[in-house]
């Protein structure tokens, strides 16, 4: 039950990386980079200073972006 490995489970990992800079890749191949503000159990994500990256080039940037969970790959 309370294995010592439990501090590396996925939800703990995700709450540990809040505030750090992440890349979220969507099903359509577009990536979003930014500081992870918040994430929930659906994998809905809010990024601060979000940047849209298509291929190698930054296409657009947003102040805050909310990304709906079902679109995220990682």
């Amino acid at each position, binding site marked *: 039950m309370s294995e010592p490995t439990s501090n590396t489970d996925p939800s703990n990992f995700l*709450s540990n990386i809040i505030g750090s800079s992440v890349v979220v890749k969507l099903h359509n191949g577009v990536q979003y980079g930014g500081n992870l503000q918040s994430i929930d159990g659906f994998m809905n994500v809010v990024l601060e200073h*979000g940047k849209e990256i298509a291929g190698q080039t930054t296409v657009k940037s947003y102040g805050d972006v909310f990304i709906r969970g079902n679109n995220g790959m990682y």
Partner: protein
Amino acid sequence: MSTLRTGQQSQEPLDLIRFQLDEFVLVKLRGAREMKGRLQGYDSHCNMVLSEAQEFIFNETDSEPIVKKTEMVFVRGDSVILVSPTTE
């Protein structure tokens, strides 16, 4: 509450959309569509109601998107990709 804890407060992503109520948002949708409008409401499925909305339909052939204006529109949550604050 066995869901994720964010440390100090449990600010979930959907709580952060609440700050954008009654503001203009850009909603990116499946099928190369975007919607701009004033956010009237939303729910946990990301169903959204926008007023003073403009829909942009992007086309591979045309560089200019097709624009459709609607006074009030409901967007079904499953087609939502992204929500971001915008001007106008």
